[in-house]
Structures are given as C-alpha cells and as structure tokens.
C-alpha cells in the first residue's frame, strides 16, 4: 500500500504569537516551527498501515526551506521519502493554491491513500484536504478517528465522530483521509530513525518543475484576502456567585445568566 502524507509546518502551539506591524500577518522571527499536529496523526497512521501492508510512505510538504526539517522529522519517524515544493512565488498562497500545487505533485505519484490533517492549527481553514481530493477526483473522508484497511488493501472503513455518535464510512481506494485528534498517538523520532533519515531521498520541486504557472500562486492570486488580524480579547475576570445556600446560589446564577450573560 503506497501512502502519501501532506504535511504543513506551523508555529509550535506553545509559541507566543505576536501580530506584525501590518496587522495582517504574524511575527515569525522567534517562532519554533513544528509539524502540524493533525498532519502528524496522518504520518503515524500511514506508518502503521505500511507496517501491516508494506509499500512506501511519501511525505509532501510545501513552503520555504525550513520545511525540510519537518519532512526530515517525518522521515526519522519512518517515512521513506520526501518531496518539498518550494518556490518564492508560493509565498502568501491560499488554501486553494496549496491544494493545486500538491495535486500537481501527486499526479506523478502512485498512491492508494493520501493523508492530510483535518486542518492546520495556524489558519484553521480546513480546506486543503477536501480541495485536494476534489482536484484529484477521489473520495474525501474528513475528520477521521479510525482507519481499517481491508485485508486485500483495496478499500478502507473509517470512523468519523458525529454529535456523540460514530459514522462508519466505507470507501474504495484511492481516497483521501483528513486526520482528526484521537486517530492515534504519534511515535517519537528515535535516534536510530534520525540517523537513517539522513540517507533517505528528499527531492525539491519548484513551480516550474511541476509545470505550473506562477501567476496562479502567491499573494496576488488569493481568492481570500486577509483584511486584519487582532489578538484575542483579554480574558475578563471571573465572577463568584453569591448566596448562603445552594438554592440561593442557583437562583442568583440563573439571574446572572439571563440578565448579564443573556444566554437565555
């Protein structure tokens, strides 16, 4: 079973995010970059399927050269080869352009399954996975927490949580799965894995290499424009509900919810 995992590099979730002077982007100077956690679930699931069915896991990333480190990390976890789409003209591309670039790489690869994260933890768009499936003309299985491949490796049965229930979906292959939290617990890149990753192939491709027109990518080609970024409001101080007895407190709470918070 050949599997492709699309991987985005995002700021570490513990990084303190600062908004830049243009009010439309973040300051990236001191950011620690990591693999998007949802994509990491994809890497782990791909490795588990490879361990069961054999085949190859290819990791595809897009962005500046620093993304190499994230791809190498996935190789250290056990993936077989990496591809980095890197081109100055990609800077500022939106989700649709990203999906187009990924689709251009994927059309030359043999795959049974594609994994992406259900969303990037930076922009929270959740578009690249479904858009990529659409561009490739394959089924899209979103927000998946369990993957069971058939013994013959020709189809998958996957679980999606819906409102406390589980939706079980069966799909033929090839298909695209967007990974949701709960799918698995990603492994650590082990020391022997890190040493082995040094020798694994990692190819770089520009838009030209992929036969793509630079005018369809980057800031200028965005379908969506970011107008402004604002930091989340400071958390207001909490309120302690007064009252002598539980009954009094409950009554006071109901009053506050109605009159102040206006939730009902």
């Amino acid at each position, binding site marked *: 079973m050949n599997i492709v995992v699309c991987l985005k590099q995002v700021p570490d979730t513990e990084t303190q995010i600062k908004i830049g002077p243009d009010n439309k982007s973040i300051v990236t100077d001191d950011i620690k970059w*990591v693999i998007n956690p949802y994509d990491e679930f994809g890497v782990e699931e791909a490795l588990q399927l490879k361990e069961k069915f054999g085949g190859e896991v290819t990791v595809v990333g897009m962005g500046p050269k620093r993304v*190499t*480190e994230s791809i*190498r*990390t996935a190789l*250290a976890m056990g993936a077989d080869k990496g591809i980095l789409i890197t081109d100055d003209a990609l800077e500022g591309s939106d989700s649709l352009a990203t999906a187009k670039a990924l689709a251009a790489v994927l059309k030359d690869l043999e795959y049974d399954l594609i994994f992406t994260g259900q969303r990037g933890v930076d922009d929270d768009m959740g578009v690249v996975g479904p858009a990529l499936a659409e561009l490739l003309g394959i089924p899209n299985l979103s927000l998946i927490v369990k993957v069971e491949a058939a013994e013959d490796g020709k189809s998958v049965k996957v679980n999606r949580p819906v409102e406390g229930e589980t939706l079980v979906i069966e799909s033929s292959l090839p298909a695209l799965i967007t990974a949701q939290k709960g799918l698995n617990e990603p492994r*650590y*890149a*082990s*020391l*022997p*894995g*890190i*040493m082995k*990753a*040094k020798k694994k192939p990692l190819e770089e491709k520009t838009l030209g290499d992929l036969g793509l027109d630079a005018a369809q990518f980057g800031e200028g080609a965005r379908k969506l424009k970011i107008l402004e970024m604002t930091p989340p409001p400071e958390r207001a101080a909490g309120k302690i509900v007064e009252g002598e007895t539980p009954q009094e407190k409950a009554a006071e709470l109901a009053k506050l919810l109605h009159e102040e918070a206006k939730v009902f």
Partner: protein
Amino acid sequence: MDFSLSMEQEILRNSVRDFAEKEIRPVARELDEKEEFSHETMQKMAELGLFGMFVSEKYGGQGMDYVSYIIATEEIARVDGSHAATVAAANSLGVGPLYYFGNEEQKVKYLPKLCSGEALWGFGLTEPNAGSDAGNSKTTGVLEKDQWVVNGSKIFITNASTRITTGVTALCRTGTREDGRPELSCILIEMGTPGFEAREMHGKLMWRASNTSELYFDDCRVPQENLLGPRGNGFHQMMQTLDGGRLSIGAMGLGGAQGCFDLSLQYSREREQFGKPISNFQVNAFKLADMALEIECARLILYKACWLRDNEKPFSKEAAMAKLHCSEVMYRCANHAVQLHGGYGLMKEYDVERFYRDQKLLEIGEGTSEVQRIVISRLIGAL
C-alpha cells in the same frame, strides 16, 4: 565560525524534549518521592535509542557525534536529573570504557545489549576511602593461574544493581610498579559471579530515581581475559573515561539550569502579586535575565568542549571547565528558581524543589568542583 546545529541535532533535540515532557515529567515526582528506579521509563528511553549514542552501529550503537549525545542528555536533564543520570552513566561510564578500551571479543560480547538498553553496566572507581584520591584504590586483583581474584569494595556506583545490570568495570590494584607506586588495572566482573554482590543504596538527597550501589568483592574469581586493555593502564583508562563523563555531567547542569529557567519564567508570568505578574518587577526580571545569560554562556563552553572532542582535539581543560561551570550555573539557577517560586518552591508539588536537591550532586560527582579547579589549574600551568 558556525554556531548552528545540524538538522539532525535539531530534530534530536525536539524529539527528546517531547519524549521527556510526555513520558518522564508525569512520573518524575512520584519516582523521586518513592526513591525508585523505573524499569518502565528505562525501557522507553531504550526504545527511543538513548543508549550507546556515540557507539558505532557495528556494535549496535547509534553512531552519533558527541554533541548529539550531550544534547539528548541535556534534554532529559531539563525535565529530570535522575533519568538523565541513568542515561549519562550508562553511556559515558558503562559503555565508554568497554567501547574505548575493550578488545573485539569484549565489545562484541557486551556492547550490543548495553547499546539497546536491555542491559546496564557499572563503573567501579570510587571506594569508601578513595573519592577525590581515586588512585588510592584498595580493591585488589591478584592473578592466580588464569584467574583474577578480586577483593574489596566500591561505593556510589550508578546503574550497578538494577535487575538488568549485567556487570561492572572495577579498578583494582593488581601489583606494584617499578617506581613503587601501585599498579592499577580495570577488570570486568559480571553479575552473578560468586563472591560479587551489588547492594542498592537508599536515603539519597538527590537523583532518587536513579540506581546507586555499593559493590562487594569477596574472593571473587573471574577469567584472566576479563582484564580491560593492558595491565597497569586502569587509572589512565578511568581518567580518560571521566574526561568524557564530565561533558555529560555538564549536560546535566546545563539541562537542569534550562529546566529551572523554563519553569521559573512560566511561573513568574502567571503568578500575580500587588496586582501584576511577578516577572514585571525588575528584581525578578533581573533574576530571569541572569539565568538566561548564564545558561547561554554555559551552553557555549559545553558545546565547544564537545566540538573539540568530535574533532579529535585535546579537550580535557574545556571538559573540566564545562563540568565546573555548568554545575555551578545550575546551582545559581536552581536557587533563583526556588526564590521566584516563593513558598511554593519549597513544596514537592513544584518541580523546582527537586531540581534544587538534584543540583547538588553535580558539584560532587565525577570529580568535585575543587578537583575540577585543580585540573584546570594544572592545565593552565598554574599548579
């Protein structure tokens, strides 16, 4: 000059940091409290590949450079001193002498299991009456026919009495040299050899979740071929091992200091007094600034010493400086850390309490701070 780490070293740091936060942080406090060596975390560290880091792949090692080994040790120490002690002692002191001085047969016999972390090995140097005066070893090894007969005892030996320990390297007096001074040699003694007993030591102030032992040899007989390297080279082998070992103690000081700093910065930003975070008071901010500065300097000297070693240049002086400086930096950082945490810093519920205790060993183990100053004084030509 290039201060950047390689991509592999960056990935290694991220991976070990992540591992330490998720697998060691949640259990460190309880293991410290119970004074218990955990075979469970030992196995997890083994699976990650933290043993035999600088040993060639031929013997089952990871084939990494010394800087990488030091980064990994530093990241474990950032979370817990005991676990870092297990790793540092296993690599530098357990594996080190066998790898650098063992013959092919000994390496093939012992190294693969030590590198996979299935086994641990002790470094028997210190004796009840031979601490800083390590050459004054009283344990004897007498060659009778084709066997060494070992008698004596060792103390404070890390990793020497776990249930996966397979043996120890023991420095023994094997005769008298021509100049009248004792001839010292290293002898390999496997667990289970009649007359050899390893007893776990308890009641420690620090590194409570690492394994520390007393070793007793009572007419303990081992084959003649258990000699490590040439006869009479024991003291030299032990001292050379400690040169490398000092770098790992340096890594524990650096990592521990970083751990103190990270916890303190986070706490100081969250803890409010007089209506604002305590980090907003200069008196506290300056403590954090001093910690950051000292950690940066400590990292530079430690990595330089490792770089010298990786490039096969003399590094004894820098190793002594790094060990001395990193352990004293952690001393000051742990002190600031507890001070910044105030009353809470005195409680076991906060990790800085453990760091404060764990720090003390670094100024004593593998050559006290005083001995490091003697080593440096000699190497600069002052003594």
